[in-house]
């Protein structure tokens, strides 16, 4: 009659951590091999390209500082996403929340730089960014809590609203009069720029503080516990006397506020101005960071830095080997894909039909 199936998927018996790490390392090796094939197809020598790629990200201190600078918003946004994802609220709106924070902070950078002392200005910009981002995060949370709307679509759509609002400001009210017709927002006054520490703007310290606070918040506080229970099961939360509405609103306000603060760091620390590229897809890449770190803020430090290495490295090989931008991005995409896919093999294994198997009639 029929034969035993060719491939079956079975859940792995709780794999030892060493086995899990072996799979992950194998995945990275496989990704590099596969990426090497692509480099070969492009007519380059992978053994020349890979070293340049990593040297370009870590090889000297300017490159290293640049890589750290790339990882700051990535890490900040991943930390921001953590409380939302922990309660299974799929906030894919970090991008828009960053933009909302960036716009609010920019207002004070553009119009208040000469009105208050510099530290006060920084503080105001930080708070404005956090407040705007928090409000931007509260909107979808409110609608979900009140009417059960789908938060994935809602947060995604709000990204475009924030971006379009920025474009309006850029082309209208905040347009640089000296921009000779080119629609851009003026550079910030020195007073509104963040200082550097060890060659990188102090955003890296602020983000590391976020990491530590979020780690403690999620793991050791009553609020963090409630977030985890809501994520486990909303019915259980209700049963235990937890107000799902309150937890949803509070967590999304926090999630948005951290994103908004990241927006402030981007405009005031890295770019010294606001543009439609201020968020630059960080809010989306951060989802991969959060997921790969299993929502553990400490692990996010390593993952965000790793992705920053890939990003900076792919920039370098574009110039060094004249590899097109899109091809370099394919390379980083492959590495990411292998890393995400390997989590499947950490949990499941494939069983192939044995050669002799399948007694047929």
């Amino acid at each position: 009659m029929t034969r035993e199936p060719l491939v079956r998927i079975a859940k792995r018996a709780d794999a030892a951590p060493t086995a899990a790490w072996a799979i992950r390392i194998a995945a990275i090796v496989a990704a590099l091999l596969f990426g090497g094939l692509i480099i070969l197809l492009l007519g380059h020598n992978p053994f020349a390209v890979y070293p340049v790629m990593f040297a370009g990200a870590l090889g000297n201190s300017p490159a290293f500082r640049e890589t750290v600078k790339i990882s700051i918003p990535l890490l900040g946004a991943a930390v921001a996403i953590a409380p939302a994802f922990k309660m299974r609220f799929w906030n894919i709106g970090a991008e828009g929340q960053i933009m909302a924070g960036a716009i609010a902070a920019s207002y004070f950078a553009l119009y208040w730089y000469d009105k208050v002392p510099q530290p006060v200005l920084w503080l105001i910009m930080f708070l404005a960014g956090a407040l705007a981002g928090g409000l931007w995060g509260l909107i979808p949370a409110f609608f979900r809590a009140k009417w059960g709307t789908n938060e994935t679509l809602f947060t995604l759509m709000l990204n475009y609203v924030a971006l379009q609002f920025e474009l309006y400001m850029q082309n209208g009210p905040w347009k640089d009069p000296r921009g000779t017709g080119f629609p851009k927002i003026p550079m910030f006054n020195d007073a509104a720029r963040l200082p550097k520490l060890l060659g990188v703007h102090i955003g890296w310290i602020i983000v590391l503080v976020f990491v530590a606070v979020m780690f403690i918040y999620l793991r050791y506080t009553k609020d963090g516990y409630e977030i985890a229970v809501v994520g486990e099961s909303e019915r259980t939360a209700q049963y235990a006397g937890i107000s799902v509405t309150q937890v949803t609103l509070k967590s999304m306000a926090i999630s948005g506020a951290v994103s908004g603060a990241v927006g402030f760091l981007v405009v005031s620390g890295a770019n010294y101005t606001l543009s439609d590229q201020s968020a630059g897809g960080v809010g989306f890449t951060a989802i991969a960071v959060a997921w790969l770190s299993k929502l553990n803020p400490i692990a996010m430090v390593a993952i965000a830095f790793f992705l920053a290495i890939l990003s900076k490295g792919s920039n370098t090989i574009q110039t060094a080997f004249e590899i097109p931008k899109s091809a370099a991005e394919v390379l980083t995409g492959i590495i990411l894909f292998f890393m995400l896919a390997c989590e499947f093999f950490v949990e499941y294994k494939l069983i192939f039909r044995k050669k002799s198997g399948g007694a047929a009639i």
Partner: protein
Amino acid sequence: MQTAPFFVIAIMDKPFIELKNITKHFGDTVANDSVSLDIYRGEILSVLGENGSGKTTLMNMLAGIYYQTSGGFSFDGSPVEIRSPKDAIDLGVGMVHQHFKLVEVFTALENIILGLPGDKKPAQAQEELRVLCEKYGFHLDPNKKVYNMSVSEKQTVEILKILYRGAEVLILDEPTAVLTPQETDALFAVLRNMKADGRAVVIITHKLHEVMAVSDRVAIMRRGRLINTVPTRETSPDELTEMMVGRRVSLELERPPVENRQLRLAVKNLSVSGIDGPNALKNLSFEAFSGEILGVAGISGSGQKELCEAIAGLCAAKDGSIVFYPQSGGETELTGLSPKEIRRLGVSSAFVPEDRLGVGLAPGMDIVDNVTLKRHRQGRGMLLNRTSPRALAEKIVEELQVVTPGLTTPVRLLSGGNLQKVLVGREISENPELLVTAYPVRGLDINSSYQIYDLLNAQKKRGAAVIFIGEDLDVLLELADRIMVLSGGELAGILDAKGATKNEVGLLMTAGGHREASV
């Protein structure tokens, strides 16, 4: 496909289906360990075992739902591969699962012919169905929509669906779990007709009296292994229990006398809207007293869930009132309060919900964090106190003999019985004055079940008012002091458990007039 009776007898001594060394692994778990079993035509075979003994897994492989890790099947002596339910149906195997798989908006007939080649006229199919019903003694209106049917009617549709496809062997997974005693008798009559017709019937069950009542042979399973196969007439319930559990177990339940009986809870004219309709509970009034176990009986879906949730504050009452009378005196109106508000008012009540992992516990969290639930806001400051829950978790694990790799294991990895001990342990830890338990022994092995019964009795003796929603009428009659019977969301009667009989309760269960006993 019909077989002439003389031929049936001729091949009776040759097995129809042989299961040969069937082994099934789920990851590390061995669900079935080299099980060999024969199934004959013209017999009713019981597969008896506790929950988790692997009886359903074994039959799921025969029905093509799972594929074995090793071993194989033979039909009439020839080896076959069963890779899908379709293969199984082609071989004449049909299975009625515990959870019915019917299209609610279709009629009985539409469900039965669903998926079959469309070359038959409905009238012709209906005629064939009528013949089938007549032959085996089913009562079914072929044009009734499934959503209008009672559970037992749905089961009838499932069985007919299989017979209509010409099944030679019919597997029923816990078929009586949802039936009243009267409906169970009707089902057994039908099964006997099928047996007489030369078909093989397999019923998966953990209820001993059913095994004794209906089957010819019993296959006893324990922890994935087939322990023994014995002719029913040569065995006894005690012997079967011993094989099923692995040691002698006393099946006696004690019922300590009621002492110091005081009013704890008064429910008046309570009406609640359910998911399935506007009237999950209608105009229900009853009282619960301290030092007493009030059993609640009824076909599943008769409003038990809504009753519990209304008392716990998880669903809103449409009408009526729920009043709690604390031991210290006074009264507290619970109607319309959320669990949070009920807790804040200091009402000493506990609730063991039916859905342990979905409502009672947080599945991905460990025992300590699950014990923390409900008391996590205690203490000052922002930080969570895990010290006292840890002590409590250790106490629960020790006193209730919870089998767990450790306090940090996610509770979803625990077995049903251990899960329930964690849940019940947490709920009784604050010495509640009112304890509501919904199906507290569902899915538990005999040993754990009796441990839970003992815990309920201990709570009763301590002076708690216990409301026990159960499905096993034998247990309700032995354990409870009074039995409240619900039917279609209405009160059908409250009986003194001491004098009541199973038949009486069974009749009340269908007395609401909303559904008729059928099959």
